[in-house]
């Protein structure tokens, strides 16, 4: 008997299907089905995965979707050919675009407009033997003999009667009846999980879900034997499934992506146009004539591009960059192809390819006909303009955003399963908090036990197995941070488009892996805060120093800049400002651009977990000989002294050391990233070790290579991206080194971004002898400005102040400065709350009004600003000056902290210096004079707390006093012992000992004392990172 399953929901029908599409396809193949249709509700989001799995298993896959028109019975539609598939996508798009995110609204008329190459299977209600026959006729009239009635039997209370009723309908309407399974999960064992997601869907628990749950587990892929028994006497219904499957000849392999047409001007082929642009660009990049070597490279690359037909891709990227440049939006490309000479000439990147030897074709594999990878970073405040340009240029119907499949992570899985099983909210909280973000696996039962759920109890077992099963299930589609898809024809013929949560945004139903699988072009337009800051800094430098800077013309190889970097004086600089990076800088001592590339990639979880940092440093400092097992490996690892630091090197290593093909190497990379399938990694491990053995690499070395590759799988950083980032590192360092005031202003003006809060940036600027002027109604703008080479702080630093308020003040100021408070009130007409904000920030200093007095005056204003009328009082300030107590210096500082989280007057701790001296606490600034291992006491406000997953429970804490910052190392035990302080206090006194190496100083904490009772009024916020 041949049977094709025609009606299957995968877990892309969110919270309805309980199996992955690939599981359904594989299981169907195992059961000997002739074909399987994945028919998710109003969606084809899961079909690409099913397609890949079905292809591997040699099973035919039908593409379809289940839809419920508002005015007709639900129906399953299957695509018979490419056109039918387009119709299906169009239909889904129509319904999805009309409805809010996640919903779909369709009518029978919509189906009537797109039905020519679709087959229909009408779904009678599962709950009752009732159907409007007129509606069935409607379907039959529309679809003719392409219409079927689905007979689904689930061992209900009266299957026989139901089948008889369906048979009757078949006779009455002459719509042929066909068997189908209404499948919700691939094996009966998934039934428990299905109950759980049903409970999640209806926000209840399984014990209370009652009739919302399936009464039995029949909705799985049933064996052919079972089906035979079920449909006994009606075997033709089973045979007819084959008939339906035979009519559907469409396969996703037929989808051919076509680049948009308007990339090249009329009458010119894209290749000619690209060639022309490249040579023109080369002329501009090398005004003194293109060097012979570069000329050769360009010719070679262009040839490769032509061969692989990538020219439209390069043109698309070029077009974006051109647009951004025309709008003065700073941007930069990164990724394998971005480091080509062609991209340098096109202006996509400013990294001179002669400075970095990245072989273009190494990353564009001839075997895998895959689109090259170029991500473009834009200023984070202006990326939207670029996206709008794309929408405008290609039209909404040809442009869409890549989806991101948001999947269940340990925490969300624990929460949902816990709720469904009726665990107490308290226990669920503890379980979720105790589970790490990434980790589950073997440790999960132990974790559960720690917080009081016995993993051996029946509820514990159920909970653990269900939560583990739910991991990786898709929850909803979200928009990718910037992946844009553009097509020649309408996009909705290729893939359905739906509304995103954000107003005016649409996403396609596939994520980037799906698009990759089908070879569909996407360009990643990402946003990067540092680009905004650099652009703003360029503008300030131009305004105040008349110097025209671009990413490409910042002077190279400036020793002063590298000296600064080696000193780890890098607060605010792109990438290398984090504590881990800063403690690496004095050890690595970058002296050239390529050192920066290494610096950017080395402080990553990949190299750290693969234990590559120390061997590299040792080799670099000549403490260890640089050796290579063989010549091939030497070629791959030469640049990094035999230690793989980049993702590309690991892939290369698997090729030269274990004999992988480039395609396999790529599969390996993806397998490593798919963290939820541990079995796959083992498979590759065996293969890798076997391959290396053949090349004579065994034992430790082989094992280490595997671990390195595994480390990279999750958090690897490619050289091609590091190369572009390194340029931004250099440019931002250069700006910081030469224009510290402008640099600080632009970073503060681009917040939120980076690692440090404005308070630290301001402090750093002052440490670099920049004069910092306070916020004042007579001098400040919304943003920070440069005033006679000093940094004038802007109103944006005041928390809770609206930009419009500031605009009012600045406009009123255009006629001359304010002389008195009275005048300020008359001219600005600000409301009481706004005035109070300004007075809290002490912004009236130039009017000789202190905080309390100006606040007193602001209180007299009405709370809604009104137009002054004839009858409103003409003056606002009382004649009697009230007797308000003077603020002490310390109170002023505390008030500064409350409004702006920093103070230009003094550090809150400075008021306690004498007291601290008597406790033998040394200022942080003196730490560098303390010898290694000597015990010491320091104190300060907690600026940030960071517990990297790689640090074995160690928390890195930075505290600050009036002389500078101190870096603390707090071991897990200490952290727990002083839990009360470490969790709640923002001001610490620490007893510990100094650990210094290569001018990197840490204080290892032994004892922590709470200082917050002294500094309770200081409201600081620690920036916490994990």
């Amino acid at each position, binding site marked *: 008997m041949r049977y094709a399953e025609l009606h299957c929901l995968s877990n892309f029908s969110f919270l309805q299907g309980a199996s992955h599409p690939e599981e359904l396809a594989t299981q169907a193949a195992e059961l000997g089905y002739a074909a399987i249709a994945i028919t998710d509700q109003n969606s084809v989001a899961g079909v690409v995965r099913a397609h890949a799995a079905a292809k591997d298993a040699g099973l035919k896959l039908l593409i379809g979707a289940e839809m419920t028109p508002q005015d007709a019975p639900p129906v399953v539609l299957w695509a018979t050919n490419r056109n039918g598939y387009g119709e299906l996508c169009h239909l889904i798009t129509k319904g999805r675009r009309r409805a809010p995110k996640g919903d779909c609204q369709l009518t029978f008329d919509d189906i009537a407009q797109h039905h020519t190459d679709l087959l229909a299977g009408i779904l009678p209600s599962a709950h009752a033997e009732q159907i409007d026959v007129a509606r069935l006729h409607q379907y039959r009239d529309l679809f003719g003999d392409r219409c079927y009635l689905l007979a689904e039997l689930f061992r209900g*209370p009266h*299957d026989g009667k139901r089948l008889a009723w369906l048979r009757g309908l078949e006779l009455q309407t002459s719509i042929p009846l066909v068997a189908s399974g209404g499948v919700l999960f691939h094996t009966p064992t998934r039934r428990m999980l299905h109950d759980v997601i049903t409970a999640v869907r209806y926000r209840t628990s399984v014990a209370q879900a009652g*009739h919302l*749950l399936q009464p039995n587990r029949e909705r799985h892929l049933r064996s052919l034997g079972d089906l035979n028994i079920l449909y*006994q006497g009606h075997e033709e219904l089973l045979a007819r499934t084959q008939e339906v499957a035979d009519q559907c000849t469409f396969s996703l392999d037929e989808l051919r992506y076509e680049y948009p047409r308007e990339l090249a001007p009329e009458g010119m082929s894209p290749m000619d146009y690209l060639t022309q642009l490249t040579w023109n660009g080369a002329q501009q990049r090398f005004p003194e004539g293109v060097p012979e070597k570069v000329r050769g490279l360009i010719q070679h690359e262009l040839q490769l591009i032509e061969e692989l037909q990538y020219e439209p891709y390069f043109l698309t990227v070029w077009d974006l960059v051109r647009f951004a440049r025309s709008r003065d939006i700073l941007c930069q490309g990164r990724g394998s192809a971005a480091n080509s000479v062609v991209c340098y000439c096109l202006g996509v990147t400013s990294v001179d390819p002669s400075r970095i030897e990245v072989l273009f074709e190494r990353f564009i594999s001839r075997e895998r006909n895959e689109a090259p990878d170029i991500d473009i970073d834009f200023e984070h405040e202006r990326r939207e303009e670029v996206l709008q340009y794309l929408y405008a240029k290609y039209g909404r119907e040809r442009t869409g955003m890549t989806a991101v499949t948001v999947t269940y992570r340990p925490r969300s899985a624990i929460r949902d399963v816990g709720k469904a099983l009726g665990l107490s909210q308290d226990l669920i909280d503890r379980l979720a908090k105790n589970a790490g973000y990434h980790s589950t696996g073997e440790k999960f039962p132990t974790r559960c036990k720690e917080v009081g759920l016995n993993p051996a109890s029946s509820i514990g077992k159920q909970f653990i197995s269900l939560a583990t099963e739910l991991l990786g299930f898709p929850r909803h589609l979200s928009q990718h941070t910037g992946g844009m898809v553009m097509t020649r024809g309408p996009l909705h013929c290729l893939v359905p488009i739906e509304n995103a949560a954000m107003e005016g945004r649409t996403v396609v139903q596939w994520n980037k892996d799906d698009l990759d699988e089908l070879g569909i072009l996407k360009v990643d337009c990402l946003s990067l805060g540092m680009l905004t800051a650099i652009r703003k800094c360029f503008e300030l430098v131009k305004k105040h120093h008349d110097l025209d800077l671009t990413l490409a013309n910042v002077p190279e190889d400036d020793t002063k800049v590298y000296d600064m970097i080696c000193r780890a004086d890098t607060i605010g600089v792109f990438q290398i400002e984090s504590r881990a990076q800063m403690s690496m800088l004095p050890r690595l001592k970058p002296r050239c651009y390529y050192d920066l590339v290494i610096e950017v990639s080395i402080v990553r979880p990949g190299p750290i977990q693969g234990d590559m940092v120390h061997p590299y440093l040792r080799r670099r400092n000549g403490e260890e000989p640089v050796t290579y097992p063989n010549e091939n490996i030497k070629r791959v690892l030469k640049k990094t002294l035999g230690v793989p630091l980049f993702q590309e090197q690991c892939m290369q290593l698997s090729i030269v050391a274990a004999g992988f093909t480039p395609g396999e190497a790529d599969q390996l990379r993806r397998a490593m990233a798919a963290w939820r399938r541990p079995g796959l990694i083992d498979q590759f491990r065996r293969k890798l070790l076997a391959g290396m053995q053949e090349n004579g690499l065994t034992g430790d070395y082989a094992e280490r290579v595997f671990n390195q590759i595994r480390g990279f799988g999750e958090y690897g950083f490619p050289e091609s991206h590091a190369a572009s980032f390194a340029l931004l590192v250099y440019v931002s360092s250069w700006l910081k080194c030469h224009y510290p005031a402008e640099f600080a202003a632009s970073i503060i003006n681009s917040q939120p971004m980076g690692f440090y809060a404005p308070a630290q940036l301001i402090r750093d600027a002052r440490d670099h002898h920049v004069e910092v002027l306070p916020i004042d109604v007579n001098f400040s703008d919304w943003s920070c400005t440069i005033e006679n080479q000093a940094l004038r702080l802007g109103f944006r630093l005041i928390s809770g102040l609206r930009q419009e308020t500031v605009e009012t003040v600045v406009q009123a100021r255009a006629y001359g400065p304010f002389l008195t408070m009275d005048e300020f009130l008359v001219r600005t007409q600000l409301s009481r709350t706004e005035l109070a904000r300004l007075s809290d920030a002490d912004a009236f200093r130039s009017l000789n009004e202190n905080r309390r007095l100006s606040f007193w005056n602001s209180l007299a204003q009405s709370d809604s600003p009104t137009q002054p009328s004839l009858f409103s009082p003409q003056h606002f300030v009382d004649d009697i000056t009230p007797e308000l107590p003077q603020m002490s210096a310390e109170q002023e500082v505390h008030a500064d902290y409350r409004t702006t989280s920093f103070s230009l007057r003094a550090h809150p701790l400075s008021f306690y210096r004498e007291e601290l001296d008597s406790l033998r606490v040394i200022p942080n600034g003196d730490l560098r004079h303390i010898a290694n291992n000597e015990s010491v006491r320091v104190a300060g406000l907690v600026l940030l707390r960071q517990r990297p997953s790689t640090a074995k429970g160690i928390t890195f804490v930075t505290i600050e006093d009036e002389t500078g910052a101190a870096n603390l190392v707090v071991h897990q035990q200490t952290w727990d012992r002083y839990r009360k302080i470490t969790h709640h206090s923002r001001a610490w006194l620490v007893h510990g000992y100094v650990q210094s190496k290569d001018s990197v100083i840490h204080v290892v904490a032994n004892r922590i004392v709470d200082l917050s009772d002294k500094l309770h009024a200081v409201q600081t916020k620690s920036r916490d990172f994990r």
Partner: protein
Amino acid sequence: MPVSEAQTLCPDRRPLKLVAVNPEFDRLLLERLAVVAQQFSPLVALNEAEEPDALLLDLTGVAHLYGGESEWAKSVCATFVNKGFQLQCAVAETVGAAWALAHGVHMPNRFRVLPTGELNRLNALSIETLRLNPEAHSVFRRLGIDSIGQLLALDRNSLVSRVGRAVTRRIGQFLGDVPELLTPYVPPPIFCERRQFEHPLTQPHWIEEVSLQLLKRLLQRLAKQQLGLSQLHVAWQGEAKGTQLAWMIDLGRPTVDEPLLVELCQMKWERAALSFAVATVQMTAKQVGRLQCVRLSLFDEHQIALRKDIDTLVTRLHGRLGSAHVSRLELVPDAIPEHQTKLRSAIESSEIYDVSFDAGMVPQLWERPLLLAAFPQPVDVLRMCHHARPAVIKWQGQLSELRNVWGPERVESGWWRRAVRRDYYRVETHTGQRWWIFQRLDTRQWFLHGEIV
């Protein structure tokens, strides 16, 4: 502060002891204390707040009875301390000043008397003790005004436009410029009717007669306030200590239905064995509630009447059997037959009959037996036909040949409490009986679960 955070503050990770907030209890306690305090002043008030937490006593014309304000305050303190309470007690010329003193100075179980005209001695106290609103506090904090003295130094007219009249009123009340009225606390009425006899009664019917009269009076009093009785306590006491007969009659819903109550009372008395002479009869409404009003309409009169009948029945059953013993059956949506019904307290489920399921494959009534066997009873299947369907079964020693077999209906559910996996069949025997039998899918055993009639 979340509990988890509070836990971290506990020394040595000892478990935190949690006591739920119970404002109702707090209020009741304070009211009781107010009654106690009435011995010291004719005017005792609770402070005006959503959740009052202080008692205000007017001692105008009282103090001299005790020999002065200090002596008076001393007895107040002693009384409450003896009862095991901690208190802060202050006497001053205005309510505001007394409040400030009582809240601003820590003096557990002692008292302080501020002589008249010496309000300025309170200038150093925090403005927190002035009963200002929270917004005013945040304003004053920002102005650096901490003490009462600093606040009083500010021009009061300028204050009005800046912090509002509520604040200046409080200041005035502190200084005595603005009068402050106290609303005396009056305890709620106790619904209790009682009669004492000089000569104890021995004849049960007299006692009953008296009791019923008292009941009637009680109901009249309640009805005036539109209240109904939901718990009635009847007590007959003899002269000797310990001789008492008492009944609690639980009614579920508030009612003033006199005949019903009489009937219920008499039912209790019927069974009473009176062994002493009754000196006191007392009828107390232990719990009262608002009477429910139902608006009658033209069309659902029948429904309402039906409901009323059921309500009366439930009330009567309650009175006779006690609330723990009256429940009704409710349908529960569940796939497993024996879990499809549940007993619930009759008071809770007031609906007449309302079951609607809208999802799942819901069986029709005719497909299920109306009564299930208390426990599934084992049967033997002696012969099967194709696909493992039963053909001949033996139950209680009797062989039955099956004429018709419908099914199987598969039920697999309940894994979260105890997994059940069964195939149900409706069968018709050669004698015309219709049974509902199932086979356990795990053990393959057969059971009879009910008879379809």
